[in-house]
């Protein structure tokens, strides 16, 4: 098995673990961790293919963009989680049903 397919298999595994976490956890922060795992699996794919693009480095550059966007998403999502906690006194996504009281 070559290096490239190993990268792809590892990222497939990470993506599925992230999917499991997103679907099964009852805590908004853990759901966020699952989303981050899925994003990281995607970044691993970008980087693994970017190894063979030596002229333009498009894989690595878009991996950088994806990392920055994920960081911005985490900042906003955690601000929302804190607000939700202040409003509902819980961060279980199943229990947050009303948009406004």
């Amino acid at each position, binding site marked *: 098995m070559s290096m490239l397919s190993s990268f792809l298999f590892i990222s497939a*595994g*990470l993506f599925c*673990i992230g999917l499991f976490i997103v*679907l099964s956890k009852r805590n908004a922060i853990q759901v966020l961790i699952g989303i981050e795992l899925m994003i*990281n699996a995607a970044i691993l794919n970008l980087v693994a293919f970017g190894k063979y693009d030596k002229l333009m480095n498009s894989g690595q550059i878009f991996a950088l963009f994806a*990392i920055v966007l994920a960081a911005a998403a*985490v900042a906003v999502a955690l601000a929302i989680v804190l607000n939700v906690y202040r409003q509902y006194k819980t961060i279980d996504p199943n229990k947050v049903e009303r948009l406004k009281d």
Partner: protein
Amino acid sequence: MSINQVLFYVMGFTALASALVVAASKNLVRSVFMFFVTLFALAGLYVFALADFVAVTQVVIYVGGVLVLMLFAFMLSGKDTLNNLQQRGSKFITLHNFSAFLAAVLFLIVLVNAILKAEPEKLNWIQLSVQEGQTQTDNLGNIGVNLMTRYLLPLEIISIVLMMALIGAVHLSRKEEHKA
């Protein structure tokens, strides 16, 4: 098997195993710290894909920024919530998350099949690149030049998005003085 390959598989195994621990762990703070291990192992894997700069960025942004933010949100979101969540569910696969487990496993089968069928080594441009061999050594300089020429527009757009997101986060998390 060379030392390179051994290290590669150790890193890959660490990433997958620590991600599994994140999924299985009952203790929420411990799962955040295992996520830390996953991110470090992934940074090591990026080095094997000749992406040193991405690896360093991963360590700086994820480990330095995102994880600290997550722990911060954890500490702010109340002690009783954490205790309540920890007591529920003693097994890894319960009735509640069996469907999630099933979906994840089936999706894994689909992905593995797709990778096996696609045979990424036999793609045209990858074989060309392998034949050419390692010509470029100045990887980092190349990234910088490309960021400032070919990918200038995405870079600027992303900087604006980042600024908007950070201002939005500050606005969302500030204390409200006038509560309705």
